């Protein structure tokens, strides 16, 4: 299985005043059977990046290669890549089985009927859609449809899968289920996957490797735990983590009496802010969000809102005065 590489890739749309830079100076490697998650807010360039990989758009600058072979200008049907979109691309007039067979019958490189049958059976088993084969898409639920759409790319046995927010139109619970299925499929097929999402929880849960994209630029690449613990800058820190990180300007950090460090912004993950009831305390507990297995404490101190994350039950009540403690080594300092 090959390694894919983007070097110095840039892409802009439109001209003159309407020119929008979608991607700038992207260096990225997708290694053999790797699951790479691209996390970025709406408009960050995720879809453009996937479309460049798929060959649906061509880069203005930079190169795209597979192993040592240059593919910057290679048309999509010669790239051996399958893409799954957020709106389930299935043919409404064909049955589920016909939908699965279609890309094989009409794709490149004649595949024998026997082989087609075998691939369809494997995909159907992997996705658990055996009962749906004779049904038409119009009668399927969103989750079932998305499985069929994923099945259509599975049967092609590509060397790279691209997923563009494939679960965005599904319910949270359904998403969770399909997410762990995707993980299993990725392991079983041992094929590289690039998966774009704006949902940080989804990104964290799925990722072996995470790439943070914002406004067309790659901000950081690495394991999810590493990026969570050591974000490159305050933008990355804010994009990752729920409840969100507490961020302070230098003045705010001073007002709170935090130990100062090297940088102009301080970040503190909510799980590192410790809170104890103290009538003399300088902070007020304004609200508690109960998550069941944990609580998010919303606090007010020195005119600022802070969040603390406590596993289990804090035993505190809204309105109480509290004392906040921070270990200096848990403060993250950012230049920007």
């Amino acid at each position, binding site marked *: 299985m090959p390694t894919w590489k983007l070097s110095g890739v840039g892409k802009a749309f439109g001209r003159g005043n309407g020119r929008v830079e979608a991607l700038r100076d992207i260096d990225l490697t997708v290694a053999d059977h790797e699951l790479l998650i691209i996390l970025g*807010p*709406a408009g960050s360039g995720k879809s453009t990046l996937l479309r460049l990989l798929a060959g649906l758009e061509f880069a203005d600058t930079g190169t795209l290669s597979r192993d040592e072979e240059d593919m910057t200008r290679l048309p999509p049907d010669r790239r051996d890549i399958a893409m799954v979109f957020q709106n389930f691309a299935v043919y409404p007039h064909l049955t589920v089985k016909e939908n699965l067979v279609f890309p094989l019958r009409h794709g490149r490189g004649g595949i024998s009927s026997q082989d087609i049958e075998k691939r369809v059976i494997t995909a159907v088993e992997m996705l658990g859609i055996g009962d749906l084969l004779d049904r038409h898409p119009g009668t399927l639920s*969103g989750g079932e449809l998305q499985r069929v759409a994923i099945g259509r790319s599975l049967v092609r046995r590509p060397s790279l899968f691209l997923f563009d927010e494939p679960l965005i139109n599904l*319910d*949270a*619970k*359904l998403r*969770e289920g399909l997410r*762990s299925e995707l*993980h299993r499929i990725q392991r079983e097929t041992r094929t590289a996957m690039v998966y774009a999402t*704006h*949902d*940080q*929880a989804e990104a*964290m*849960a*799925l*990722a072996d490797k995470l790439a943070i994209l914002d406004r067309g630029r790659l901000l950081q690449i690495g*394991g*999810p*735990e590493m990026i*969570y613990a050591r974000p490159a800058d305050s933008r990355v820190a*804010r994009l*990752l*983590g*729920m*409840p*969100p990180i507490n961020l302070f300007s230098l003045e705010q950090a001073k007002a709170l009496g935090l130990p100062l460090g090297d940088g102009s912004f301080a970040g503190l*993950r*909510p*799980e590192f802010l410790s809170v104890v009831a103290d009538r003399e305390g300088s902070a007020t507990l*304004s*609200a508690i*969000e*109960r*998550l*069941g*297995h*944990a609580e*998010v404490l*919303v606090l007010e101190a020195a005119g600022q*809102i802070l969040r603390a*994350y406590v*596993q*289990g039950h804090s035993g505190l009540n809204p309105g109480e005065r509290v004392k906040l403690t921070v270990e200096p080594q848990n403060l993250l300092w950012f230049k920007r």
Partner: protein
Amino acid sequence: MTIADGNGFEPEVAARLEGVAKTFGKTLALAPLDLEIRRGEFLTVLGPSGCGKSTLMRLLAGLEFPDIGSLWQGGKDVTRLSADHRDVALVFQLFTLYPHLTVLDNVTFPLRARGMAASEAEGLALHWLRFFEVDHFSRLKPKGLSQGDRQKIAMARALVRQAGLFLFDEPFSALDPGTRESLWERVRMELAARGATAILVTHDQTEAMALGDRLAVMRRGQLQQCDTPAKVYERPANVFVADFVGRPGMNLLSARKFGEWVQVDELAMRMRVSEGVAGLLKQGREMDHCLVGIRPEWVVIADGGVPLPVEHVAALGPANLLELRLGNGLVRSWLPSGVKKNRGESVPIQWMASACRFFDGETGELLSWKALEVECLPGN
């Protein structure tokens, strides 16, 4: 005394549904529903798409009328009253602003329509536009603004009013979760300070748990449970609620009952249970198949426990979720911070008897059973 007696203004009740049902063609959107919305409460309604939660909101708003049953608000029967005659303010996901009016005029509109002087209305509107940090758009028309900004403006337009009931149907769907969370915190405090009553429909269970004074869970047009989030989380009424509420959901293990013992074959362990008085009275039958439910936080790694292989460790930020393979399914547990586990590694798990819930194997309903002790079967 019921409201139907006539002189029934109940100060503690903001709205009440009595046997309200709705069908669209052959589809049952809402099965007969009884629900009381208490004055001053923030009620969240949670369920997958198609569960009837939006129909419920449209009925409360007066945008649809029920086939049967009656609807009361502020002690008055409003069943047949249209939207503009009800004391409700609503923001729906796709609720549009007037395209020909400026942002400011959009927000002042409901106030001026009720006869408020222009200057006073503008002051109020600007306050709310500032609250949502969209006041710099006040002279613009909504066209061209992002979906998220338009949703904030729609929210400002609802909050300028002193309505008896606020109805929100995923009003911040276009915003990212972080922004959404902090906006809700502030809106929630604002509503609480005013003593306002509000209902929020969402499919995001974290939001539903975190924000609701009470949480109503719906599925296929039927109310499954309505109680405080803590109660719903700790004592889910059935397996659907157990799985749907909580992130991740409750672990549900298939088990058999022999006398006073419930045995989980896949784990080669069993628990002695007491059925409780209610259980004995209600059941009157021997149950062979049931489900054992345990929240991930009660599944702990401990020596001498049942060994299960690690399938995946999900780094979720503040805590890591451990997924263990059990037959065709998964058992989930929270990994203590600082502990590392790798895929394939074997991990011994245990749990406390008191953390277990039991569900009827056929109906999925919560049983009143209590586990008294847990024991591993020999040969394990």
